């Protein structure tokens, strides 16, 4: 197994009774990636990450972290750090003592390193306060500090900005960006699209335990192609015209009630506009728009059209790759 690959997951499955929380997942995280792991709540992100950290035994499949199996021994996690869900500490100990405890469990007596990481996450002044009195944001930062104590090559962060205020989210992103710029490989599980778009270069999207997309973020956007927004004087009627128009697929309602659709090509858009006018409707808006990650995320993870969207995306990716 290649020890240079930070994470390699093959056929990973976790079954809880009748429920398959993670279903035959394949993932590869390359060195230097800032890898976004996206999915709605309950999609299987945290369960997969727990398996990557050796906290949960897979029902089937394998996880290799730098070529080693974390189920066999914690030594497989050498060079790996992070947290799943919220980082947790002993509330009756102060922040500094919590970190010293964790450093000791890493076989270090690292007072100076503890001070260094407290400085990085800007908690040095609060190091003597009990963690029970920390705000959520401070605990998140202490979680990062605890991870940095291991001087990791791979950092796994599960929803690191959850519960933070806007300033806290900005600071957290800055910190992750800085660590990534220093050459650390980062896996960032999130459902915050802006965070992923800002930080990540590769993503995997998981839906009901299955990976529906894995690849570069820019490739995903290119493969999704253009969609169009349509507003008319009679949208319900326009919806039925869209349904019967040639070359139009995946019509859906947008977040503001507007209609959205993917045309096969520009002639399909021209045909649609003629059909709308012939039906007596006025066109208020018919405009092309690049798909945002949020659009793609919802396309791939929500509703009955999700599988069709995934198939369409696959075709798009093949076309993009064919054109290269």
């Amino acid at each position: 197994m290649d020890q240079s690959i930070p994470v390699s997951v093959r056929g990973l499955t976790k079954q809880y009774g009748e429920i398959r929380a993670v279903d035959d997942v394949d993932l590869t995280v390359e060195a230097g990636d800032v890898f976004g792991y996206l999915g709605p709540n309950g999609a299987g992100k945290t369960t997969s990450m727990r398996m990557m950290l050796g906290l949960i035994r897979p029902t089937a499949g394998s996880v290799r972290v730098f070529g080693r199996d974390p189920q066999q021994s914690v030594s497989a996690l050498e060079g790996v750090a992070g947290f799943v869900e919220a980082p947790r500490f002993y509330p009756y100990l102060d922040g500094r003592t919590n970190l010293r405890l964790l450093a000791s469990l890493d076989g270090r007596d690292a007072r100076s390193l503890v001070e260094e990481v407290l400085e990085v996450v800007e908690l040095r002044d609060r190091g003597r306060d009990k963690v029970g009195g920390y705000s959520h944001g401070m605990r998140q930062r202490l979680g990062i500090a605890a991870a940095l104590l291991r001087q990791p090559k791979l950092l796994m962060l599960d929803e690191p900005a959850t519960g933070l205020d806007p300033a806290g989210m900005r600071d957290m992103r800055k910190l992750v960006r800085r660590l990534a710029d220093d050459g650390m490989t980062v896996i960032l599980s999130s459902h915050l699209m802006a965070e992923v778009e800002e930080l990540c270069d590769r993503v995997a999207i998981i839906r009901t335990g299955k990976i529906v997309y894995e690849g570069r973020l820019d490739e995903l956007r290119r493969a999704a192609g253009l969609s169009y927004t349509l507003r008319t004087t009679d949208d319900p009627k326009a919806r039925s015209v869209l349904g019967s128009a040639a070359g139009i697929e995946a019509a859906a309602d947008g977040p503001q009630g507007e209609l959205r659709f993917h045309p096969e090509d520009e002639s399909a858009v021209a045909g649609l506009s003629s059909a709308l006018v012939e039906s007596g409707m006025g066109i208020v808006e018919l405009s092309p728009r690049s798909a945002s990650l949020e659009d793609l995320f919802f396309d791939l993870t929500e509703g009955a059209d999700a599988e069709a969207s995934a198939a369409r995306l696959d075709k798009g990716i093949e076309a993009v790759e064919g054109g290269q």
Partner: protein
Amino acid sequence: MKRPSTLAVYRWEIRKLRSQKRTYLGLGAAVVVPLIFSTAVALQPGGPEDVPFGRYIQDTGLAIPLVMLLFGSIWLFPLITALVSGDIVAAEDQNGTLKTILTRSVERSQIYTAKALAAFSYAILAIVLTGATAVTSGIIVSGFNPVTSLSGQLIQPGEALGLVAVSHAVYLMPILAVASFALLLSTVTRNSAAAVVGTLMFSLLLQLITIVPGLEGLKPYLLSTQFNAWQGLLRSPADWDPIIRASWVCALYAIPSLLVGLTVFIRRDVTGG
């Protein structure tokens, strides 16, 4: 990154216990209860006639720790022991800190061993504190006088004090078996309250079995019976049979509990927190 020694992990378990209120609740009870008992002896004439050494508590303070051992075996010492042993794994589950420590460079078996040793250390300290408090307060209340053995001979105070100390050491065997069982429940239930109450119920159930007609044959093999093994030392000559039996009966309760607990701890999925 090198793997830490189990001793280093144990030291941190002790550090955690030192920072938790429930540790002081248990140790406080281990000190306060013998003080209350000695105060009651000072304020009231006579003593509990129906238990060994009960009739001598006004004559010698050295009888008081022995009577405490008898009374404490019903629920006090199992409860004090379970307060920490039943919590030590489950609390980490409930706080979500198990995932924090299991993703460091320490094996699960090391963590479990350190927790077991820390729970045992606490239980030993609780018994030592009870014994020391009962001896000190007993001597203040009833004097440092000879003890009448269960065979009727007088034992001089110096020798009796030594026998009281050894009796507490023998008493530790069933206490550590109770701690092992509590640790098992703590690991399996992942719930502190369930583990503490479950250990207490288990202890009381074993006491009840001894009075069920037809089950008398089980009595020598029940954990509750081993709490009386120390009485063999207070005979002339000393009767070692109950102590030898207590050693293997307690091991029969403790070792499987520890091994099953360890196996569950190593193999379990950590989903909490």
